[in-house]
């Protein structure tokens, strides 16, 4: 201990204090602050970049999930649309068939009615014609027969035989 006190040099102590404090202050200004700041900035940068990458990854995942969901929805919608379209088509065809059938029946009925009417008309016409013809024959016969009494009766009888209705 005595040796230590004897060895102690005030000059060296004072110089060491001055030089060391000076060194701390100078290094603080020119070295430690810029170095620590740069390191901090870099670490922050790395951390941010990692965070961003993670976020981007999550977003990407979300996007993919969204895409898939949308695709699924779209598919489902398309299926529904297609189904609807098919149903509609089938409905339309069925309707059209029905309509056509009704229309056809109507046409057929009308045609039959017309045919019937025409037939009736033709029959009536024929009847008229026959009547007129009969009358004119009858008139002629009557005129010829009327000259000969026997003949007249015979004619009338023949005529009547001929005419069948």
């Amino acid at each position, binding site marked *: 201990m005595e040796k*230590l006190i004897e*060895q*102690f*040099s*005030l*000059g*060296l*102590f*004072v*110089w*060491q*204090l001055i*030089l*060391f*404090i*000076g*060194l*701390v202050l*100078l*290094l*603080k200004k*020119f*070295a*430690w*602050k*810029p*170095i*620590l700041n*740069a*390191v901090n*900035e*870099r670490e922050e*940068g790395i951390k941010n970049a990692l965070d961003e990458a993670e976020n981007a990854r999550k977003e990407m995942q979300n996007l993919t999930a969204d895409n898939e969901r949308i695709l699924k929805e779209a598919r489902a919608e398309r299926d529904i649309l297609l189904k609807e379209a098919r149903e509609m088509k089938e409905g339309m065809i069925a309707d059209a068939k029905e309509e056509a059938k009704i229309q056809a029946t109507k046409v057929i009925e009308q045609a039959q009615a017309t045919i019937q009417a025409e037939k009736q008309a033709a029959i009536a016409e024929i009847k008229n014609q026959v009547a007129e013809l009969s009358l004119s024959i009858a008139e002629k016969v009557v005129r010829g027969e009327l000259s000969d009494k026997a003949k007249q009766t015979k004619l009338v009888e023949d005529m009547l035989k001929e005419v069948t209705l």
Partner: protein
Amino acid sequence: MHRNNIVKLLTLLLLTVTISVKAQHDTHNETPVEDAHSGKDIKTEIKEYINHHLLDSYDFTLFSYTNDAGEHKYIGAPLPVILWDGGLQVFSSSKFNHGETVAEVNGNYYKVYHNKIYKTDAEGTISYDEAHHPTNAKPLDFSITKNVVFIFLVGLLMLFMFSKMAKNYKKSAVPTGLGRLLEPIILYIRDDIAIPNIGKKHYKRYMSYLLTIFFFVWIINLLGLTPLGVNVTNNIAVTLALALMTYFITTFSGNKDYWKHIFWMPGVPTLMKIILAPIELLGTFIKPFSLMIRLYANITAGHIVLMSIIGLMFIFKNWIGSPLSFGLAFALSLLELLVAALQAYIFTMLSALYFGSAVEEHDHH
């Protein structure tokens, strides 16, 4: 533990060597090897050389030798001596001729005795008291000694190194060159020393001090191991200055809780509080004191052992001496490399711990 074992081993080896040297002396009945110049035997000379190496010096001497004519020659440069002796006295240390002559400045005479400057008369007479301590007046000494020069050079080196590193960050966020080596250490100090001990809230205030002290102690310890061998941290003045700074920073950043835990420890009976207060107060001084002694003692011990082992080479003049000495010195140098970093780490770590206790916020429920 590991260190202790190695120290024990070394002590054992040293003992064996001493015994064998004695045996050698006995068998051959040799006279101790005399030094031509001073007449001291070589063991004393080595001891003195080690002591001298551990001390500060007024010259920047790289090495010295004795030439054929028996004169000591020194290779190095003189440094300015600054004294306050009723006025500022500045002169070159070459006036002392390495402690061999009396320096005359403005009518005052100064002499270096045991590495301290004393005021003397023209002949350089030094009078002693009973305990063989000089009674001459000691002027206030603020000389730029070898250690001051070295501290300054290390400061410049650090300033150059780290400001260059800081500039590199402006160019790219990734460290380049030396920064690649230094950045992990800086981050280690931040993440494993400052933040766990001080806490995330306050650590930023202390980073500059912690980083500076770590690199300062480490670099200066490492350079002390180079052949240049300028020891700075084995001066109690240097470690005292460092420890005092830690003490003052701790004391001035102490919050209410810190002082409360010292003077009025919560959660113990009143009688205990009264007993604990002086102990805790003493503790605040002992903590930096231990910092001072630890660094000083570790580095000093390392250098003494290392130089003693190298000194063995000169004592132990046979075929086994040099390889043994070399092997031991090499192993110890490796250990000292570790110690250099370890002491810097411990100093920084404990400083951070003390700062942490000063700013810690306790929750009392």
